[in-house]
């Protein structure tokens, strides 16, 4: 295309065409430089962190990571220490890594299933008040989760009482069972967006397909399992990946509902703690941060397409 148009210009007017070519090659050179500068600015900080995490402690603390190239020394000691050391001054990051996994898996599965059920009902089960319920759920996207934190926490710790009468007891969760309240919170907060996205997708499916299945005597359960689920798999994947990243990278919900100890808190909470109290222990911070960053990066690189779709679709969450 470009060659065609430039030859056309040249034949039209030789002098103007030459000037334009010079200008174009100049601008394309500037464009190239701008692109390279931005790309460098966007990758260097991460690269510096990664390289530092592999350098010996005394070097990280006394020299910049760029001096590595003059005096290359690599070690995995930082990772060994931040992950597996049991002394409380180090990261104990392995514990928190397990917590992050335990928090994330159910916090993705529950909202995925519940949102799919609700979206199916709102899209394909005709009943009175359907639109009202849909608009209600839809509108909840507006509520920032900050609005829910204090009362939801007291719901877990004190139960529900109306005018002094206890109608629901406190959950009183101890130790590992506290994960349940983190799952609960993440599931609640994910539903408005999940229902909205999946409903959008499901309502686009051809009605004749579902009508035909119904005429053949299929129940809603069968239609949902055999017909709908396979068809909306891409949307489920997009929402699932988005929710995975949201939960894995979340700090606020973890901080409030999982507490701050190695028993239940996710990696992000631990890293934020370390950045505050051990802000100069760079050998642990760099290695710890890289452990937490590598998981979503792998997901990103292996499922880039769904990932981008999910992120774009889910950009209003929160």
């Amino acid at each position, binding site marked *: 295309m470009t060659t065609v148009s430039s030859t056309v210009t040249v034949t039209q007017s030789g002098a103007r065409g030459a000037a334009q070519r010079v200008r174009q090659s100049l601008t394309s050179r500037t464009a190239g430089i701008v692109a390279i500068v931005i790309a460098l600015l966007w990758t260097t900080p991460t690269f510096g962190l990664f390289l530092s995490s592999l350098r010996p402690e005394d070097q990280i603390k006394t020299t910049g990571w760029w001096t590595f190239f003059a005096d290359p020394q690599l070690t995995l000691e930082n990772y060994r220490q931040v992950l597996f050391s049991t002394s409380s001054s180090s990261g104990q990051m392995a514990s928190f890594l397990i917590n992050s996994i335990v928090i994330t898996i159910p916090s993705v*599965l529950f909202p995925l299933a519940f949102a799919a059920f609700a979206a199916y009902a709102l899209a394909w089960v005709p009943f009175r008040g359907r639109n009202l319920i849909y608009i209600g759920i839809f509108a909840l996207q507006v509520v920032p989760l900050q609005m829910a934190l204090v009362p939801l926490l007291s719901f877990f710790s004190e139960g529900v009482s109306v005018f002094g009468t206890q109608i629901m007891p406190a959950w009183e969760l101890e130790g590992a069972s506290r994960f349940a309240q983190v799952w609960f919170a993440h599931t609640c907060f994910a539903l408005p967006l999940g229902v909205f996205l999946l409903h959008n997708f499901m309502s686009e499916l051809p009605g004749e397909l579902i009508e035909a299945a119904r005429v053949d005597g299929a129940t809603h359960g069968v239609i949902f399992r055999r017909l709908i689920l396979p068809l909306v798999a891409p949307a489920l994947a997009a929402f699932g990946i988005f929710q995975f990243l949201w939960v894995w990278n979340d700090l606020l919900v973890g901080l409030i509902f999982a507490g701050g100890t190695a028993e239940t808190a996710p990696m992000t909470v631990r890293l934020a703690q370390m950045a505050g109290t051990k802000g100069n222990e760079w050998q642990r911070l760099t290695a710890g941060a890289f452990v937490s960053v590598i998981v979503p990066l792998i997901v990103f690189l292996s499922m880039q397409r769904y990932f981008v779709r999910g992120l774009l679709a889910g950009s209003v969450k929160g």
Partner: protein
Amino acid sequence: MNLDFDFAAEQPKLVQLLLGIVAFCAVVALLLLLLDRAPMRQRARLHAAILLAPALILLAIGLVVPAVRTTMLSFMSGDGAAWVGLDNYIWMFTQPEAVTVLRNTLIWLALVPILVTSVGLLYAVVVDRTRFESIAKSLVFLPMAISFVGAGIIWKFVYAYRPEESDQIGLLNQIVVALGGTPQQWLLEPPLNTLFLIVVMVWIQAGFATVVLSAAIKGIPAEIIEAAKLDGASPVQMFFRVTLPSIRSAVVVVLVTQSIGTLKLFDIVRTMTGGQFDTSVIANEMYNQAFRYGETGKGAALAVFLFVLVTPIVVYQIRQRREAVR
């Protein structure tokens, strides 16, 4: 150093995870079973109720009731014992420390969406139709996958400070020193420290803008571009007269999305400064008041104010998105 990591201590967690997954399977199986048992000829209401019950119950407990309760708490004292009228809101708009928080949020809101959109747009334009386009876009998009906490640490390291006489370990101070300046404690000096935090947000979000805007640029009909080129439009003219007007709605999407994300921003401030040195923003202050100082009323008032700020933007965004779908 003690390295005997206690794997046995981790077992209860894995048991809990297993319980969670079993519970998940049980709930899903139960719902499907109920659905199969409910005869198809009966009113659809029953089917709908079975399908909607989990979502509606969770939304009621987890969002609707708490939101109402938070609104009530915002008119009550810190311990939630007495009504105090508008005191919490008056505090928010008059006390110097609270006003600083609001001012910072405004600075964030004024800068982040514009900067993210500009950088994203610039990058999308310069890498468009080049050989390395997809790799180039991935590189800038990569920070989107990282947690805000991780990004905070990455940048805290860039900003790291060492006294003048010793070697610098932070990239920014190294550059300053190399250019003949003196190293600075970037995160400690207001008001510039807020700008250094904003850089982190822009760094994370620019990839989002790049991807959205790049897709929009590719959607511009080829004939329009060809026609402009035939008319001898310079690249700069092309950008302002052809590209920008054609992707207006995508630009709005990015601006709006970034505004919402910026208003709710918490993690970066919390990780990098903890809100100290005059860098706090609404969401961070809400957390501090409600969960660290036990001032539930003030925290609730901040949450309500956040809600009030976000609502018009989200409504606008949803209307835009609905138009886009049509």
